[in-house]
């Protein structure tokens, strides 16, 4: 009668042991296998190609300071020449690649909004003389009357 629960318990024990083994094995393997990394020269080539794209964007008046600073950080890490730095640099480069792609996609709308703000400012400045010509006499007279409203004419 008692045999069945005992067998069940053994099965559960074996199952738990297998799970523990698999977990420990996976963890130790993840420690021993280094993550895939690009060679420094490949990374350098990618940095150069990203730089060219950033220069083109900058020439169109797009603010590229943030991705340039990140690439500068990646280059600094590459100067260190150790594995950890190369992996870090690789992460930064892929982040910059995404940022550049985003900037390139947003380029038309950025250019339109920049032009709108530029020509809008010019139009606003151009309207000052017209507004002054139309409004100044009215405002001046209004104020002139207001400041003299309580004046009494002496007999």
């Amino acid at each position, binding site marked *: 009668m008692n045999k069945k629960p005992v067998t069940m318990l053994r099965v559960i024990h074996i199952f738990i042991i297998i799970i523990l083994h698999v977990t420990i094995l996976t963890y130790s393997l993840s420690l021993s296998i280094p993550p895939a990394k690009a060679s420094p020269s490949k990374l350098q080539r990618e*940095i150069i190609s990203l730089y060219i794209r*950033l220069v083109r964007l900058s*020439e169109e008046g797009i603010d590229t300071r943030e991705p340039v600073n990140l690439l500068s950080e990646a280059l600094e890490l590459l100067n260190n020449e150790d594995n950890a730095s190369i992996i870090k640099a690789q992460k930064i480069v892929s982040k910059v690649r995404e940022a550049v792609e985003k900037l390139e996609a947003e380029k038309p709308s950025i250019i339109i909004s920049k032009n709108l703000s530029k020509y809008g400012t*010019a139009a606003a400045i151009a309207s000052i003389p017209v507004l002054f010509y139309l409004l100044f006499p009215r405002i001046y007279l209004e104020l002139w009357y207001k400041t003299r409203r309580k004046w009494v004419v002496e007999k």
Partner: protein
Amino acid sequence: MNPLNEEVFAAIMALIVVGSAIGIAQVLKPETVSPFTAFGLLNEKCEIGDYPAKAFYGENLTLCLLLYNNEGSPLLAQIRYKIGTNDTLPSDIAPSRKKPIKIYEAMLSRGENITIPIQAPVTPERALIGKRAALIFELWIYNVDERNWTYTGKWVHLYLEILEEPLP
């Protein structure tokens, strides 16, 4: 003075029109920059002056390099470190014929400056031990149109007396 007097009003209007024209010109004028890069060598504290005059063969000298980008666009720069003598210094048009010992790379946004601390290994030809050598730092930039590294004609050098390495 009545500002609504025809003559006074005309004078005020003239001033405002001129001011507005100058303002519009300022907003619409294309951005003009005189492109240049500045390049300098600083001591281990990243300050000007107080440079080392002697170094042991094989020693790593701590120095700083200063770069300033006013090219109007981002700049990808390479500083090629070489060791030569008075005869192998670079010129405004040609780099030194010596091979680079180390290459430092940096990227700068427009209008940005950077100070790069470096460890320059003093490893000239052994024939230069006991003599005066020049640590040469050449500035190269990546030319986007030609897709290659171009020598800028800018370099800095530091003369050092190379001493025999001390016994361990």
